[in-house]
């Protein structure tokens, strides 16, 4: 006899899903947590007041009371939240949370961030209050008053640091996460914020060493909206910067990607990646895993790459010929690229939609740098994610938390290695896997990357003796 508990069961798991279960007696917020949240709230209040009224504007006190309090309160909140728990994966309630599960807080945050980008790009004069707020810092760093880009850079860096420290706490049992988070935090602060402003202070070109063509497209474009201003800069270091940038694009990219995979850039250096890995972490699970998203991704990311390459080539042809060979085409393409791809795609959608579409929308669907790095990674790299035998039990944590929307499970459950162009090597799939099935590895050769190296030491020897083409049995 089949039990009545089964026969009477009529729940429609497909249509209804499983909502948040009831909570028990619970743990009350501690005094420290309350204070931290209060500090953050006070900071936001001060920000609004200073921004809108102009009171204390341009003073250090105003800056500390607003952004300073928000950052300190935010960091303390995250610290205390994780400090009370045993180190380990803490994703409890991620799906149910209003902020992390596309609830009204999530939508609200999305609106706020999106709105900020729209003001920043097209109505910067509306940000004047905030610009003056950060004046004192700009005075010391760049030697002059702030503009809206300085404000943006500061907010960006603060976000990377506050949420970077959150990552440190969340993954205090995982050194891979800590090391790469430290890397993006330091690069953001040093190479993307302090150094460019210092360069300005010393009347050098404002150059970002952590970006290069094609992501920073203008670093290889001819003429005044390209490298012109660098090359013709009176200080002469500009030329070296151009050479550095070209070296990163054409030498460092293939070489480093061969050894480490695209992660060396995407989740260790890049500022966009840095923001996605820190501020974006609470939303990584929102990236779509549907086959449709995957088909769209393949078309869109390589289209952007083609557009940027074509634009660059046309610009150079025009430049070499000394007159517009294709009429107004090249400059027009360049302008549109900046508007549609640079501003709307990378900024407004890429970051503004974090709480709705997940943290790597731009990196996954648009970034031409990611496209280039991905091609290298897929075709010629030692990097792979290895699967540990047959231990996968298809739970789906790896796929759910892959910010690039890769269905990691579909490989893991077949015992196959994951070699995907889009994988940024964040290592979260390996971190969340409850059965320890996944490991990010740089093999000793690129040739065996699809099948995994069971015996890396033996492999090293045999690959030295026989060359890289070791035949590997494909496991069923």
């Amino acid at each position: 006899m089949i039990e009545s508990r089964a026969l009477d069961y009529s729940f429609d798991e497909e249509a209804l899903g499983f909502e948040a279960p009831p909570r028990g007696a619970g743990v009350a917020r501690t005094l420290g947590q309350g204070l931290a949240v209060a500090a953050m709230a006070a900071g936001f209040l001060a920000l609004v007041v200073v921004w809108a009224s102009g009171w204390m504007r341009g003073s250090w006190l105003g800056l500390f009371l607003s952004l300073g309090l928000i950052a300190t309160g935010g960091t303390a909140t995250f610290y205390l939240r994780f400090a009370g728990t045993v180190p380990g994966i803490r994703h409890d309630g991620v799906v149910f949370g209003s902020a992390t599960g596309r609830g009204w807080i999530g939508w609200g945050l999305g609106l706020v961030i999106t709105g900020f980008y729209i003001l920043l790009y097209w109505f910067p004069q509306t940000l004047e209050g905030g610009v003056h707020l950060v004046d004192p810092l700009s005075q010391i760093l760049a030697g002059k008053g702030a503009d809206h880009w300085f404000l943006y850079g500061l907010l960006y860096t603060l976000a990377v640091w506050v949420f970077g420290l959150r990552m440190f706490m969340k993954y205090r049992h995982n050194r891979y996460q800590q090391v790469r988070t430290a890397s993006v935090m330091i690069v953001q602060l040093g190479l993307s914020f302090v150094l460019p402003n210092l360069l300005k202070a010393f009347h050098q070109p404002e150059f970002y060493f952590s970006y290069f063509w094609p992501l920073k497209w203008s670093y290889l474009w001819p003429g005044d909206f390209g490298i012109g201003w660098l090359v013709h800069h009176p200080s002469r270091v500009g030329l070296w910067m151009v050479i550095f940038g070209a070296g990163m694009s054409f030498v460092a990219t293939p070489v480093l990607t061969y050894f480490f995979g695209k992660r060396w850039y995407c989740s260790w250096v890049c500022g966009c990646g840095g923001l996605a890995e820190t501020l974006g972490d609470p939303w990584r699970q929102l990236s779509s895993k549907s086959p449709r998203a995957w088909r769209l991704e393949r078309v869109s990311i390589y289209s952007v790459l083609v557009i940027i390459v074509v634009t660059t080539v046309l610009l150079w042809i025009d430049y070499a010929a000394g007159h517009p060979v294709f009429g107004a085409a090249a400059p027009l393409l360049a302008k549109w690229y900046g508007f549609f791809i640079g501003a709307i795609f990378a900024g407004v959608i890429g970051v503004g939609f974090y709480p709705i579409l997940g943290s790597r929308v731009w990196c996954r669907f648009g970034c031409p740098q990611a496209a280039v790095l991905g091609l290298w990674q897929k075709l010629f790299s030692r990097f792979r994610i290895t699967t540990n035998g047959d231990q996968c039990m298809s739970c789906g944590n790896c796929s759910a938390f892959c910010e690039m929307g890769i269905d990691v499970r579909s490989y893991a459950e077949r015992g196959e290695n994951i070699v995907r162009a889009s994988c940024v090597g964040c290592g979260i799939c390996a971190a969340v896997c409850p059965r320890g099935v996944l490991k990010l590895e740089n093999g000793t050769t690129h040739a065996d990357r699809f099948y995994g190296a069971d015996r890396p030491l033996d492999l090293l020897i045999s690959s030295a003796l026989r060359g890289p083409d070791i035949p590997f049995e494909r496991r069923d």
Partner: protein
Amino acid sequence: MHTVILGNGITGVSAALRLRTLDPQREITLISGESDYHYSRPALMYIFMGHMRYQDTKPYPDSFWDQQRLRRVRGWVVGIDAQARRLHMHGGESMAFDQLLLATGSKSNKFGWPGQDLPGVQGLYDLMDLRLLYENIRGVEQAVIVGGGLIGIELGEMLHSRHVPVTFVVREASYWDNVLPAEESAMLNRIIRDAGMGLRLQTNLQEIHAGADGRVAAIETDDGERIDCQFVGLTPGVSPNVEVVRDTAIEVGRGILVDDSFHTTVDGIYAAGDCAEIVTPGEGRNLLQQVWYTGKAQGRVVGEVMAGRDAHYRPGTWYNSAKFLDLEYQTYGQVGFHLPGEKHLFWEHSDHRHALRIVYTDRGVVGMNLMGLRYRHRSCERWIEEGRDVDYVLDHLEEANFDPEFFRRHEVEIRGVLRGQYRDQRARGAAA
């Protein structure tokens, strides 16, 4: 030919996929009363804890099944007419089959405790239980989980994540020490208590008492102690789900009896996975394997058999893995089998969150346990299958390490400690 697979768990689905690969023309139907689509049973806990949505626990996109031409039927089978080759469904319909695979899984054990059927008392096996749990934990101030084991600790973690205070009531002297050696088991006791859960060892459930509202209000232990609680989780293990074959010609022992090609005693009817008991002539004890991996492996073999191939299930070196709260566990080979002449080498980090055990006999290394360390399945398996000696394994530990990059490596320390133990054991052996 119409093949009907009863059960859309990992066994049924693995069989269906293998069969589809080998026979593109076959008409295949998967039946389950539990869910429309195959989902990962071990992921049940993550739905409840809010790590994933239910959809995320489905290994294949919904479009996959039509693409593979695997028909899905939702409903309970209440009877099998082996003679007429028909299944009878709850609700009156019936379905004809040429081949039938029984992959009905397990069901939670109940040991006839007084009060075990009270409202507020339940096990954890399927979506029905999960749904029930939502109702049962409403307003609960104290939960008790009776019977240790893997599912018990998962249930505890689930309740804990919703801030429901949990106490384990366990018969053993140390958590799961019927499977784990004493040291690993002690690590579990510690991690349970560190998480803030209660743990009563060597305690037996005597009776479950109802309150005035008819729901569970307390349990009574064998030493007469009463623990007030509004929820009782019963997780004293599982046994094969054989309800549907009772009173048919299909023979049943503890599970549905099959040979190593998963034929039941009735022609054209097969059984595999949790519900099957594999008769192994000459070995004394039949094989009952009730984990995900074995379901997958058995499903593949029975898929081949149903496609007309001559395939046999040959279980390889045993392995399993689990996670107790935040403590990962892997096991390879024969640990806890009490082999004649077996000896143990054991290292534990001072933080009590990392440990490694090697079991060896004069045949070489026969088993390994890892706590808080990830090792390569293939390396450990190969050492055991090749009968490597302790020295070889200790020399090659680094090769097997599967922890993420930058993690602290313990191999040098482990080698030092275990070498010392090994030397002592051999000296003692020589002296004796």
